[in-house]
């Protein structure tokens, strides 16, 4: 081995030009592979941190009646089917050991009405129990004005990004109830128009749900202005509202409806006179049209409901325990939900988030293809250079064979040369790549592009390299080395002693 490595090392020094060419390719390849893996890891970590842990969990339950699993960034106007079987769903989820958290939510589009404007605005609403929401997503946003609503409170949390957009279109600047104008939070446009700024502490919203003509306009008091920690330009379109107001806005059954005695005239309107109301929510024969209730012209009620779980939802966000195999969990959960007759199914976050998930997958795939192409190009160039080197050294190699060197020795010598080059230059490339991955976040490279934010894994470019990422790069380099050396090794091994003589 010592002899083999000695010859290999001295050959590298003897053929400095060729060695340098191969070395530069290996260095560049290893550097780009390391950074590429860092970007992929950073993106995966960013997606996990910002989308899964910060916005919607790993899995989303949607109604079987739902045409598309994309419930988050769906086309404006296409409504999300209601779920009225949460009690059953909850029982199923509680029995799954791989489920860590779950949160039922309402999600639909609402029209924002303004008496001063003929053109309504639109807002995505996410109806939640605020206390439960905070347990599921404890630090995904900051309340920059106002405060976080108390449990059961009727309230709206308005994202600052949507606030700026609303101002641009409708000239209204939302501030929390009892709050004041915070100059440093004003957008550039709002600041320019500060003297004529129309300020509002509530928003009147009319739920939009296809097939329902019984939605109500609800005045939501703005409790706070929020800013998401990451991907604010995407998540900042979603207003958080309390689930009961949300249900009223969308014309869904509320928990209050379920807790209160339903008046006879309402039962008549619902066609429920004489029927068992509980069976409506527990029975398998539940049909979509059955969830609608009659128009009640409800304005945001002041009733505080401690348990809001009895009403209608649109989705359930689920977080899995760490280390759980995603596909297995999805399959098991779907089986359990189907067996329990819940009328819902589990969709992966990537599908439920629509273009955001698809874009994350596309970007990840593109990066993977880029790294693979890089890998192939490096292999081809190294194979070519080493093969030429083997043929040029046919006389020397043939002589070695003549004095008793086996094919394996010659092949080993070539592998040794490639391995030394890989270790020195490839190792250098990996170290430089690690350094670059560590340095890049310090520059806080930001982007205004929403999709690039997904690539960045957050608001700024933040590639990440774990030990496993480094080991993956080392493994890739090892594979490049072995594949690149295979053909030249074969060529060199097949050089016969006769070649040494015939080329003299």
């Amino acid at each position: 081995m010592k002899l083999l490595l000695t010859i290999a090392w001295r050959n590298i020094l003897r053929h400095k030009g060729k060695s340098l060419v191969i070395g530069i390719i290996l260095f560049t390849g290893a550097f780009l592979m390391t950074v590429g893996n860092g970007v992929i890891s950073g993106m995966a970590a960013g997606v996990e941190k910002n989308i899964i842990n910060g916005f919607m969990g790993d899995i989303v339950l949607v109604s079987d009646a739902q045409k598309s699993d994309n419930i988050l960034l769906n086309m404006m106007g296409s409504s999300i089917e209601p779920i009225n079987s949460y009690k059953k769903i909850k029982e199923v989820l509680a029995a799954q050991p791989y489920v860590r958290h779950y949160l039922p939510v309402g999600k639909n589009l609402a029209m924002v009405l303004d008496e001063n404007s003929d053109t309504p605005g639109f807002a995505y609403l996410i109806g939640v129990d605020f206390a439960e929401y905070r347990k599921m997503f404890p630090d995904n946003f900051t309340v920059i004005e106002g405060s976080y609503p108390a449990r059961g409170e009727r309230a709206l949390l308005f994202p600052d990004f949507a606030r700026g957009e609303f101002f641009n279109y409708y000239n209204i600047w939302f501030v929390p109830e009892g709050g004041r104008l915070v100059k440093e939070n004003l957008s550039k446009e709002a600041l320019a128009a500060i003297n004529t700024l129309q300020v509002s502490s509530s928003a009147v919203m009319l739920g939009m749900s296809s097939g329902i003509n019984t939605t109500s306009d609800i005045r939501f008091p703005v409790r706070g202005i929020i800013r998401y920690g990451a991907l604010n330009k995407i998540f900042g379109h979603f207003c958080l509202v309390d689930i009961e107001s949300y249900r009223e806005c969308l014309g869904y059954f509320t928990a209050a409806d379920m807790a209160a005695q339903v008046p006879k005239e309402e039962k008549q309107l619902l066609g429920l006179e004489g029927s068992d109301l509980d069976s409506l929510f527990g029975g398998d024969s539940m049909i979509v049209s059955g969830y609608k209730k009659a128009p009640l012209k409800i304005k945001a009620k002041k009733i505080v409901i401690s348990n809001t779980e009895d009403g209608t939802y649109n989705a359930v966000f689920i977080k899995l325990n760490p280390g759980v195999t995603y596909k297995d969990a999805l399959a098991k959960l779907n089986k359990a939900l189907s067996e329990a007759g819940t009328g819902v199914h589990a969709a992966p976050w990537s599908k439920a988030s629509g273009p955001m998930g698809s874009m994350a997958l596309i970007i990840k795939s593109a990066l993977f293809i880029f790294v693979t192409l890089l890998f192939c190009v490096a292999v081809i160039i190294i194979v070519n250079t080493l093969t030429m080197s083997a043929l040029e050294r046919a006389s020397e190699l043939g002589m070695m064979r003549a004095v008793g060197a086996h094919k394996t020795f010659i092949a080993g010598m070539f592998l040794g040369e490639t391995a030394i080059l890989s270790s020195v230059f490839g190792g250098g490339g990996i170290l430089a790549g690690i350094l670059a991955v560590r340095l890049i976040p310090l520059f806080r490279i930001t982007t205004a592009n929403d999709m690039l934010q997904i690539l960045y894994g957050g608001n700024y470019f933040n590639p990440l390299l774990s030990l496993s990422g480094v080991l993956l790069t080392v493994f890739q380099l090892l594979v490049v080395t072995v594949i690149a050396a295979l053909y030249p090794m074969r060529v060199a091994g097949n050089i016969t002693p006769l070649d040494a003589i015939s080329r003299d």
Partner: protein
Amino acid sequence: MNIIEIRDLKKDYPLGDTIVPALRGVDLTVAAGDFMSIIGPSGSGKTTLLNVIGCIDLATAGSVKVGGREITALDDRQITDIRLNKIGFIFQTFNLIPVLDVIENVEFPLLLMKRPAAEARRRADKLIEEVGLKEYAAHRPSELSGGQRQRVAIARALVTNPDIILADEPTANLDSVTGASILELMRRMNEIEKTTFIFSTHDANVLKYARRIVRIKDGLIEKEPVAA
């Protein structure tokens, strides 16, 4: 005792659609410890004969026994082992490993045989001294003259104590004085190490060093002339 026994050896080379016969039925025996020269004009088949004896080239037909072992039916691994353990080579163009210095070139075959490094170094040192290159031990081949390189090649050929040393025109690239000194050295080593030497040449001046001369012409052995 015969170290080499050749019977009806034929070797053909394909040249496009034609077959060119290089050896056309050679019969030859070589006794152990001999110092034999194969002579003949260019293209007579002497290099081919040496190549087949040295397991560098394969016979088309016939029988070749080296040290009593038939070599025409062996696989590459077995043939390589014979080259390593039984045969030493001295080439016309020296063929040293350019990245190794003199001592490393000489001990190279021993290291291939997986002999302990210290033992290999001792043996190489001894042979370098015998060929008169002790002070050049740390030099690379590119720093040596042609004659010095051929001395290194002789030391390398002898280092494994082979049964046979084959030398293909060992003096062809040397001036006459250096060539003579190389042949003197080979003859001396033959006497010291008792190794069989077979060398090819077409230089009539070389013949005086040989104890036995085999003349080859058109791929056939001619009647042996009287040795010098």
